């Protein structure tokens, strides 16, 4: 399991906080890596913009929009701080939003940097129905989508958002729910 892995089946050396002794993990899931492309693209754009601006100013000195040359470098550094904060926040959000499927239950770890974390779980005897959906051409092409679990518990629906190989995950979960 490397830092960018979104789908791991029977992972070695992976545990979660409330794991019982002998509880075997079947899947550790994150959103498909391809869902990170929009923010990666925005970050690259954020890195490139000051370079393009500086290049433009060097070629057209009369078009300098900022004017205060003594603050120009600081403004660029501030811009890069914003880019770093944005990139880090997006990566951490993706990395720590994890779904764990074990032989006994399903655990959904929701994490929003600076705001909250929530861990919810359900056992298979409470799962009434499971389904999956691939909602657009990207999801079909890259083989990722949503897995839905209807439960009898207080939290009525579990949703695994944009996980890779949703058909396989739903298949295994429905088998485990049928055996429960």
């Amino acid at each position: 399991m490397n830092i960018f892995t979104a789908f791991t089946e029977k992972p070695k050396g992976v545990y979660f906080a409330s794991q019982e002794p002998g509880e075997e993990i079947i899947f550790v899931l994150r959103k498909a890596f391809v869902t990170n492309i929009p923010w990666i693209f925005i970050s690259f754009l954020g890195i490139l913009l000051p370079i393009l601006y500086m290049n433009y100013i060097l070629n057209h000195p009369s078009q300098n929009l900022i004017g205060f040359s003594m603050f120009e470098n600081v403004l660029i550094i501030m811009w890069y701080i914003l880019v770093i904060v944005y990139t880090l926040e997006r990566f951490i959000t993706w990395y720590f939003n994890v779904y764990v499927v074990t032989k006994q239950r399903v655990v959904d770890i929701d994490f929003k940097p600076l705001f909250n974390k929530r861990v919810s779980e359900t056992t298979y005897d409470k799962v009434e129905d499971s389904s999956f959906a691939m909602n657009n051409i990207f999801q079909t092409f890259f083989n990722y989508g949503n897995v839905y679990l209807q439960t009898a518990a207080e939290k009525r629906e579990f949703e695994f958002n944009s996980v890779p190989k949703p058909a396989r995950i739903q298949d295994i979960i429905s088998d485990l729910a049928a055996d429960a």
Partner: protein
Amino acid sequence: MDILFDQGLNFITIALNLSIIVILVLYIIFSIIIVRQVQLMSKVIITGVNKYVYFFSLVHLAFALIMSLVIILTTI
């Protein structure tokens, strides 16, 4: 006229300096919170690669502190 212009420029300089300090302080707070959150989340889901993410968050905090210091010393 020149005095008014100088006063205006002084005001802009002070306002910019203050906003730079506020942004840098917020950035350092953000970096500290990220380190703490990575630490906490690494206990919720334990994988072999969490240590790299934690190390990266520490490097980022060091970068934030050093860069803030450099900006304050060179511009303010």
